[in-house]
């Protein structure tokens, strides 16, 4: 799809829910997520000519790369990653959970941060495993193996908690 003003409009509509959902899940702070969403888009728009010269990378994965860099910059400035505290952050994030969502949230808490990032990028950002490999600069096979392990762990966790439908 050629990148022009009309297409960007469509891209915004298709990408923003995934990007914003990803940022909220990472940052646990909706207002901060909005700030970073805006910054990410502005930087993407600004650097769009350089993206046009690049071949083989999808726009959405490029956008997520920018967003990840923005998050890192934010944490660097903040000194460290602020852990999620429901008292401080948006309460509605955990208030309106369905049963499935609560179980998945419980499971991914057991994962390492790198595995959590895989899950977010695959299921929230809807990126393919190859795009995730490019984004994280690791081997695609490694991404597959880690994803498989994470899901196997989740399966075991759910089995132990007797939660199969």
């Amino acid at each position, binding site marked *: 799809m050629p*990148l022009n*003003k009309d297409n*960007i*409009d469509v891209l*915004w509509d298709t990408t*923003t*829910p*995934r990007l*914003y*959902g*990803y940022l*909220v899940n990472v940052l646990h702070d*909706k207002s901060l*997520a*909005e700030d970073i*969403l*805006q910054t990410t*888009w*502005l*930087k*993407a*728009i*600004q*650097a*769009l*000519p*350089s993206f*046009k*010269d690049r071949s083989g*990378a999808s726009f959405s*994965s*490029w956008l997520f*790369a*920018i967003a*990840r*860099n923005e998050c*890192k*910059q934010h944490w660097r400035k903040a000194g460290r990653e602020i852990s999620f505290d429901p008292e401080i952050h948006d309460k509605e994030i955990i208030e309106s959970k*369905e049963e*499935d*969502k609560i*179980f*998945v*949230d419980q499971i991914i808490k057991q994962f390492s941060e790198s595995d959590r990032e895989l*899950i*977010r990028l*695959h*299921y*929230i950002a*809807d990126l393919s495993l190859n795009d995730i490999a*490019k*984004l994280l*600069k690791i081997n695609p096979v490694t991404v597959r193996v880690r994803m498989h392990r994470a*899901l*196997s762990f*989740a*399966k075991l966790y*759910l089995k132990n908690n007797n939660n*199969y*439908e």
Partner: protein
Amino acid sequence: MNKYKIIQNRFGSWGKNKREIPLNNEMLKKEVLSRFPSDLNKKVYPKRSPLIWLPVAFTAMAVFVLLVNFTGYSNNVGKQNIFQAEIGKDSFSTSDVFKSIIPPMPPYGREQSSISDTREFLKIDYNATLRTRNVNDLKNKTEMIIRGFNGRIDSSNGGEKNGYINFVIPKTNLESFRIEIKDLVGTRFYSEQISSQNLLPQKQIIEENQRQTEIKLDNFQSERAQIIGNHNSSIAFYKGEILTKNTEINTLNMEYQYANIWRRAEITNRINQLQTEIEAIQLKIRNENISYQEKLNNINSQIKNTQENLGAIKLQDTNLLDNVATVNGSIYLNWISLWDIADTYIPGPLLAWVLFLTAFASFLWYRRSMRVSYLDF
């Protein structure tokens, strides 16, 4: 349904539920799209960060320091080789213990020594430099060690930054003393220079002086004996002459009682003549005694001086042997900074390492900033 699929579905459902749009989505969208560039075909080059010059500059400085250091080292090695070659031409043999030592001592009096004389009277000088963070403490420990090895401290001086100790220890204790001193600070902070010199020429000079003096003393004693002998024979001769003349006088006195008047006059004249001759002989005896006494005093004085010289030479000999049996030493204590300590442990110039590390760190910084600014993945 496959359990693995169930899990995937649950995660998929979870991911979809997580997707949402921000509350002021339209406003954000409008804001972002208003910044959309008019000409997308315009080439945009990433802004070159000035930080790229930092690693380059630091690396260049490090290489420069290395080159300067290497050049200085080469010159020093060259000079040292020449110095060692010159030393090698003149060096004289030392024991195995001191093989690693360059003797900077002048070859005193070596030209007079005969090669056939292979005796060794090695005088050893020991100099050491210790580097420490606590000069006073190390000085006290060093003094205790010197005294523990039956040594004598001749002078010492200590301050916060520097100190020195001059001392003497028995030669037999030198090896164990060196090990003890080295263990105080470790080999990296210890340097020593031990020089040895064969005092054979001095020993030979002393021996030659002693031999000459003993010959001289023998000569004086022979001369003295000869003076005494000559004197005794002269006195005996004069006493014999007086005895003869007194015998003649006695004979003439006995004849005088029975002689006529003419004969008496002759006897009287003869007796007077004999008495005059006796007086002359007695005068000669007195003169001989005076001359003898003078000669004897003179020769005695010379003998006494020669004996004193001989005593002094023997004392010199004893001193030389004592000197050979001891080691003169001096230990310098220098304060060392942390930078110098690091420099001691790191091969090559420390400054170059610091510059290389700084270059590497600035390169990493540059890479990070570039990664952020290029938005690359």
